């Protein structure tokens, strides 16, 4: 097929696709006026039945909590897969800790960058915990807060405090945290089966709407997901960092 024919074919295909896309968007309900009863029913189910003011959190961690269990296990498996693959490439003789290898790379970080990174670690950790703890009250939750917590590790690395990273991040502790987060979610799902007769049923006291301790199992599940996500991202990133630092020390 010549280049010209291919371009023509592509233009025809794009025109058809574009036309279908415009037709589909034109048929959408107006913004803020969804068809069907579910939007209103979800708010009612979250606010009235579960005492959860963040409807998205109420849906993901209670009404459709079983989907979130699946998603959490996907991330769990992805982190394990990445770790197994990256560690298999690392030879036994190269098994020294990344912290020692990074000493050579350390002076290359600008002092201002290191100071900025070191000063941001605390506030970022607090922000991550805040986002996880208020997952059932305001937008946010375990996933977002977990990634924010993991980014605190990256700040430690940017600060060049690799000895600090070594103390903060013994990989075995991160692995245990990941397993605990995933296991806690499954246990809460099982708890619903035991105490309320259905998996994922909200079996804890609901409390007063709007309070930090309210919503039954929703904040507990947020915390479980937060721990799991923070550990999974930390694990993947630290394995990749180990690889990068391994190369750097090889050059030196």
């Amino acid at each position, binding site marked *: 097929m010549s280049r010209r024919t291919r371009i023509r074919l592509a233009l025809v295909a794009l025109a058809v696709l574009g036309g279908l896309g415009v037709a589909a968007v034109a048929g959408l309900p107006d913004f*803020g006026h969804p068809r069907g009863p579910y939007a209103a029913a979800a708010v009612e189910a979250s606010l009235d039945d579960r005492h959860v003011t963040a409807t*998205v959190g109420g849906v993901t961690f209670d009404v459709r909590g079983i989907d979130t269990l699946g998603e959490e296990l996907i991330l769990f498996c992805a982190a394990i897969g990445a770790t197994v693959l990256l560690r298999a490439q690392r030879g036994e003789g190269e098994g020294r800790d990344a912290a020692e290898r990074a000493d050579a790379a350390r002076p290359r970080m600008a002092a201002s960058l290191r100071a900025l990174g070191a000063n941001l670690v605390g506030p970022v950790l607090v922000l991550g915990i805040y986002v996880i703890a208020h997952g059932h009250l305001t937008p*946010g939750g375990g996933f*977002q807060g977990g990634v*924010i917590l993991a980014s605190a590790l990256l700040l430690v690395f940017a600060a060049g405090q690799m000895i600090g990273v070594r103390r903060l991040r013994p990989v075995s502790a991160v692995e245990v945290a990941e397993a605990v987060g995933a296991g806690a979610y499954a246990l809460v799902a099982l708890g619903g089966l035991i105490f309320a007769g259905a998996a994922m049923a909200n079996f804890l006291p609901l409390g007063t709407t709007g309070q930090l301790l309210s919503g039954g199992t929703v904040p507990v599940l947020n915390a479980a997901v937060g721990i799991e996500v923070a550990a999974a*991202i930390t694990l993947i990133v630290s394995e*990749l960092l180990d690889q990068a630092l391994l190369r750097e020390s090889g050059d030196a």
Partner: protein
Amino acid sequence: MNALHVAALLAVAVSGTATVLVRDPVRQAVVAGFFGLALVILFMAFQAPDVALSQLVVTAVAVPIMVLLTLAKLRDDRDDE
């Protein structure tokens, strides 16, 4: 649909196209960050703060660090050959 919606949609279209047109992967990672930021503003404009927050942590933390570390590893692998 107000002016903010139109501006956010246009920003997504422009930065998304720019991400595809940039060919150097390291620069692409930076441009993809702006694309992600445009998506964050779009989700906020359409009143989806939860999605905006998820997009923000993915586009600011997860994607760039993994892309850059993978590129560093690929570059070193090529140097070895």
